[in-house]
């Protein structure tokens, strides 16, 4: 059964290992399907234009649509954005800017605890020693439960549950503390799984090499596996950082913590416009985008250092 194609002979002809001789002249020329599909200037123009058109289109939507003025008034009212940012006690307006400080505080404290706690869980999950089976099970159950249960319920559970128990030390903490505990419990489950992916991405032969030097299980993990693992999973780790930063907002449901979003919510319901939400969103962007750019640079530097001076194959 001859295979159609540019080659002579049928593919199955065992005797003919060398089917291709010289290809026809010109047969290496780009045929429109290669990576040179878009050649030079014209391609650059196409991609620039299409991007500008796309972004322009989105903006136009907000400028020229029939209801655009109303939308602009509701979401992008400069006067009220300023008011929301600064707050105005005389009008019962809270300061979104001041609220943001609380978000940042909660985020930083929680993040440190999460990075540590998640690592413990991830490592427990990797244990293959049968006698430590219960710990492994515990780690599995932990991730399942705390990923499965919505964060808001964990926050309710801790924030309302702990005080209701009337236990000294446990029941008398502030909402701030309960909030952080809930964040740590919930996010550790996610981050542990991210670590796990990283650990799994490191080839067994690396562990073999580390152990063969006499490094203990823990030291192999510490010096050989984790550094490679963490590099791999920086993007999803950053995902979780950013989510955490945003989810600090949920702590406000406990009542006492008026962070940026709660402040925005109050302001918006007072003024009946959503501009305060826009302020909160922009402020969060100001936090997360530099973080994203920073980690991008980190990844790029790492890749270029390790890989070929011209890691050139695309």
């Amino acid at each position, binding site marked *: 059964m001859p295979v159609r194609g540019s080659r002579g002979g049928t593919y199955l002809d065992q005797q003919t290992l060398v089917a291709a001789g010289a290809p026809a002249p010109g047969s290496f020329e780009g*045929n429109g399907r290669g990576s040179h599909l878009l050649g030079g200037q014209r391609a650059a123009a196409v991609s620039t234009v299409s991007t500008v058109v796309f972004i322009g289109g989105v903006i136009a939507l907000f400028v020229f649509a029939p209801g655009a003025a109303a939308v602009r008034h509701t979401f992008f009212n400069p006067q009220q954005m300023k008011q929301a940012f600064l707050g105005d006690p005389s009008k019962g307006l809270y300061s979104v800017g001041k609220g943001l400080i609380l978000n940042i505080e909660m985020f930083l404290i929680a993040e440190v605890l999460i990075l540590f706690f998640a690592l413990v869980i991830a490592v427990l999950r990797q244990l293959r020693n049968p006698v430590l089976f219960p710990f492994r099970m515990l780690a599995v159950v932990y991730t399942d439960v705390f990923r499965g249960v919505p964060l808001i319920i964990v926050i309710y559970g801790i924030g309302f549950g702990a005080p209701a128990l009337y236990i000294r030390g446990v029941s008398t903490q502030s909402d701030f503390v309960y909030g952080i505990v809930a964040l740590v419990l919930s996010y550790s489950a996610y981050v542990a799984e991210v670590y796990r992916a990283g650990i799994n991405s490191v080839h067994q032969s690396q562990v073999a090499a580390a152990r063969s030097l006499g490094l203990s299980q823990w030291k192999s993990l510490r010096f050989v596996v984790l550094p490679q693992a963490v590099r791999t999973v920086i993007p999803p780790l950053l995902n979780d950082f950013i989510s955490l930063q945003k989810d600090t907002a949920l702590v406000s449901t406990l009542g006492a913590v008026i962070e940026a979003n709660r402040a925005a919510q109050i302001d918006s319901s007072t003024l009946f416009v959503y501009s305060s939400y826009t302020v909160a969103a922009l402020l969060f962007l100001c936090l997360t985008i530099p973080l994203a750019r920073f980690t991008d640079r980190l990844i790029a530097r790492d890749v270029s250092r390790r890989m070929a001076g011209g890691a050139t194959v695309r």
Partner: protein
Amino acid sequence: MSEADATGGFGGAARGDASLSGNPALVGQEAVRLEGVHKSFGVLEILRGIDLSVAPHEVICLIGASGSGKSTLLRCVNLLEPVNRGRILLWGQDVTAPGVDENAVRRHIGIVFQSFNLFPHMTVLRNITLGPIRVLGVPRDQAEEAGRALLVRFGLSDKRDDYPDRLSGGQQQRVAIVRALAMRPGIMLLDEVTSALDPELVSEVLGVIRELADAGMTMLIATHEMGFARDIADRVCFLDEGVILEQGPPRQVFTAPVNSRTQQFLRRIVDAGRL
């Protein structure tokens, strides 16, 4: 490797293959031609002007010290590394020119990497049929039949459904060779292709290469095994500090080298009893 006999030899029918002689304009033309090829990694200049022309059917062995740029040269030929200066021509066509379809070029060139680079998520059989199926468009059953036959030829029929991580070094190397052969390329670039093979297999591979050359394949082989180079090469090129210092038939290069650096390289080898 008695299974091998069942499938017969390699060359034969391919000799005088239509696809080679069918293009009269090209007969007699070089298969590969490097003109002043320069290649740097950052500030490190690895290739400093390589000129080399390889006739169809020819088997060239690149020898030279570790780090002299043999692997880099092979990678340049199939465009895995872009050259900084100079041209590379295949069958008279400049493949370093802009607008060239890299994929079309690579379809005609097989390469066996020094570190094998097998696909760890695929069985041996899928490793070797990926190219034929996805690039040449060969139907799966035909590709697999051809692949199985090649595996038999290389004594790997029982490893067909294993994943590469479970293979020994020599088994991986043979899979890498088969993967390149399965594409039935016109040019083969072989990088230390016998390094993990036992002596029996080495002479087996030697036989395969001879058959392929007879069948019209052009080969560029980087190797440290001087005995192997002596046995297989039509021409030996000695690479040193980024240039080809000396080239010629193995007998001449190994026994009467003209360049003093080549003499030194070979003397030490002979002293060590390694030639």
